[in-house]
């Protein structure tokens, strides 16, 4: 009988070292660690805190929108809240989420490496991230910023009150953390692969992280430059963007979206990598069309750089430029569509095991599909004119970034939690959390598509009374969503102490990370793994046979 799943390399011999969590116990050993796994944990804790800040801002916004007058907070406060929500969630949660937590933790292990290529640079990345975050938090506490996360000029550079430059400095600093992480991952993938691990044997998560890293390295500097120019205009009145002093406001939008559209793919590609891993494992089948899924990540990374102008169809950009950006935007949707179709085909004739990570992935596929398809509406020029800057856009990108990326991040955490912590979480509660998040998410954001088509503009503190019913539904959904998010926080912490011990490979998965202990020792592997197998050597037929045999054994004698 064949194995259910053949790991990419032979399992490690018994390891008699303490695991990475307990090998050193001082605070100093955590704050000065160069272990990629510990750095992943540091990131996990910090982005969770930022998520709570961004989530609190969202909660206040949703509560304010219960009534058309926006009775809870003033318009000034509301504008600061959506700026906090956007800045924190984009730069201090979504962009670092999968790459710096899951990427840091599992990427080197998937490659069979002891660590990333530059461990100390990796630690420096975290300090840059936290330093940038401190600036952002200081800007919030000191009085806030009301420019929106997009910092459009000349509002941000000339007219806005508040701590715009402090906020921009925070993003600027954190950006260098991103660049360093991207660089680190690129070099790691090129130079640190285990013997036998050729490019086409790489797990698809590695392909997606590699593509993401290329974007991080190439796009983030443009953001840094843009923010510096904006700050120069604001601080010294150097005319760059404000037409009153000889600047061009559209220039800012071009520069900003030249970074921020690729950044949208930073916020989804890593999630796609997680989905590929999980869907193969829990359908006990190799990902359908490995090459297409792998190279579609690369295609997304490349095409993602040439579609920025689709944010500017009504900005007074030339209509011919609009046409070029529109067709390119339709083209970039093809590789994403290919991925969805391939994941679906992976399920066909598989042996599907409904565990929590898989439920999150099902949620991802449904929500990402809706998010992606509504993107077509926004790529279609004439429809975008009506929909842009309305709640339709809000709903669209939340379906991608929250429905897609956050689902994938949580799916990934549930999948690798046994490896990270060595413990299992309570399965039933975990399934419940996936269900709550899926239901709450849809109730929160689906009404916003309708609001957008009806014409409710985004960033409105108060709104026309006919929009109230849909806004109340959305707020109701947000409260369910919040419960869904608090559940994992609670049971993951609980599992650290009380969870069932996981063992090396609780899912019977094929990646190199599963061939070593859970939690792994400091240097991951006792002997260097030699890769002999393709990435997803799962066998659904063998899985079914094994299951049947197990069931037969459990049956009482009189049935046999």
């Amino acid at each position, binding site marked *: 009988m064949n194995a259910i799943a053949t790991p990419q390399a032979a399992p490690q011999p018994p390891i008699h070292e303490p695991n990475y969590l307990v090998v050193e116990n001082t605070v100093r050993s955590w704050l000065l660690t160069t272990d990629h796994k510990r750095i992943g944990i540091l990131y996990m804790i910090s982005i969770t805190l930022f998520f709570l800040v961004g989530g609190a801002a969202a909660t206040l916004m949703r509560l304010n929108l219960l009534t058309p007058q*926006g009775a809870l907070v003033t*318009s000034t406060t509301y*504008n600061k809240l959506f700026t906090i929500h956007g800045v924190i969630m984009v730069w201090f949660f979504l962009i670092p989420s999968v790459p710096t937590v899951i990427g840091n933790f599992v990427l080197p292990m998937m490659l069979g490496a002891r660590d990333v290529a530059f461990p100390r640079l990796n630690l420096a990345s975290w300090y840059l991230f936290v330093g940038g975050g401190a600036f952002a938090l200081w800007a919030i506490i000191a009085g806030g910023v*009301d420019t929106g996360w997009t910092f*459009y000029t*000349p*509002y941000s550079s000339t*007219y806005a009150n508040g701590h715009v430059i402090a906020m921009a400095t925070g993003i600027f600093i954190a950006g260098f953390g991103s660049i360093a992480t991207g660089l680190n991952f690129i070099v790691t993938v090129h130079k640190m692969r285990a013997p036998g691990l050729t490019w086409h044997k790489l797990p698809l998560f590695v392909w997606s992280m590699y593509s993401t890293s290329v974007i991080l390295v190439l796009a983030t500097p443009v953001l840094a430059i843009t923010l510096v120019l904006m700050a120069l205009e604001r601080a010294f009145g150097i005319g760059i963007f*404000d*037409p*009153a002093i*000889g600047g*061009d*406001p559209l220039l800012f939008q071009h520069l900003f979206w030249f970074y921020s559209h690729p950044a949208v793919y930073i916020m989804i590609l890593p999630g796609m990598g997680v989905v590929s891993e999980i869907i193969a494992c829990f*359908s006990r089948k190799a990902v359908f069309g490995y090459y*297409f899924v792998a190279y579609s990540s690369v295609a997304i990374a490349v095409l993602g750089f040439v579609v920025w102008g689709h944010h500017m169809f009504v900005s*007074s950009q030339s*209509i011919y430029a*609009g046409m070029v950006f529109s067709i390119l935007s*339709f*083209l970039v*949707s*093809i590789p994403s*569509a290919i991925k*969805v*179709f*391939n994941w*679906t085909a992976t399920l*066909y*004739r*598989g042996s*599907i*095991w*409904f565990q929590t990570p898989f439920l999150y992935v099902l949620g991802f*596929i*449904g929500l990402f599909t809706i998010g992606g*398809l*509504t993107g077509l*509406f926004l790529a*279609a*020029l*004439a*429809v*975008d*004119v*009506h929909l842009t*800057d*309305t709640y339709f856009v809000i709903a669209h990108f939340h379906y991608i970034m929250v429905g897609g990326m956050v689902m994938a991040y949580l799916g990934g955490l549930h999948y690798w939690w046994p490896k990270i912590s060595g413990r299992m979480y309570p399965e039933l509660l975990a399934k419940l959390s996936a269900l709550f998040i899926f239901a709450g998410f849809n109730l929160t954001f689906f009404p916003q598509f309708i609001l957008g088509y*009806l*014409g409710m*503009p*985004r*960033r409105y503190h108060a709104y*026309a009374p006919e929009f109230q019913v849909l806004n109340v539904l959305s707020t109701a959904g947000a409260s369910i969503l919040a419960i869904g998010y608090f559940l994992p926080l609670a049971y993951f912490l609980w599992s650290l102490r009380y969870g069932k011990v996981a063992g090396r490979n609780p899912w019977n998965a094929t990646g190199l990370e599963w061939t070593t202990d859970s939690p792994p020792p400091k240097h991951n592997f006792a002997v260097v793994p030699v890769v002999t197998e393709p990435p997803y050597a*799962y066998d659904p*037929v063998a*899985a079914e046979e094994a*299951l*049947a045999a197990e*069931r037969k054994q459990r049956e009482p004698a009189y049935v046999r």
Partner: protein
Amino acid sequence: MTALLAVWFLPPRASDIAREVDALFYGLLVLCGIIAIGVCAAVVLFCLRYRQGSNATRQAEQKTIPLEITWSVIPLVIFIGIFIWAGAVYFHMSKPPDNATEVHVVGKQWMWKIQHPNGRREINEIHLLVNHPVKLLMTSQDVIHDVFVPAFRTKQDVVPGRYTIEWFTPIKTGDYHLFCAEYCGDGHSRMGGWVHVLAPDAYAKWLADTSTTETVVAAGARLFQARGCAGCHGPNATVHAPPLNGIFGHPVALSTGKTVIADEQYIHDSILQPKKDIVAGYPDNLMPTYQGQLGEEEVMELIGYIKALGSTSGGVP
């Protein structure tokens, strides 16, 4: 059923372009609905059929290439079709007809200032004649704003230092929301009002019911004299400045050797930043800047006057 849907999910449809946008929207809705339902149905079906322990056939290896090509090429072809359709409507949206009535719009934190050709001014309200095309000539005095009328399905940013144009033909009388759709600060959500589309008799009554005595062109003419433009550009000027009669809409040769069309933007910039484009054969230090001296509304009135200057008449009408 459709009536219920309309009340709940559809904004009123009050411009000719709204029909085209809605047709496209519903086309996309059907297409994307089919794709979404197809994907979800396949996922659910496979999950049920191939759940652990079910007695369905399992298979590890499959042929991928024919399927990959199918599901890459078919969407690509459909998407290009949508691009062309949407692009055509967008193109239509971008080109106002010649007979459109030109209404001036200046956005400032946080109000819309409107001026009709007969000189009548409004704030946060626009009265329009049904079934007659309207072209809004728009600019901002401070930050970027955006004129959004959901019932017309049109939206256009209003950018400081630039003229942008939005046009539509209202096809149904009634009152429709006017929103600012580009975040502009504290009062952003209050920066709106109403578009009133009136039947011909009501519109005539509204036009007549006014204390305005001065049309846009007349106001421009007054400014032309009062602000000293006529001293150099007028018929009896002693200073050698480029004549303005009949230049609007015609090519102008610049000292750099380039030729530009004298449109609204060109005249606007020539008034506020005179050193930007120097007409060939003229010194570059002749004209003082009016930046900070003239508001955007006044510049628009001057442009209205210059547009009205015939090619032969030398003076002020």
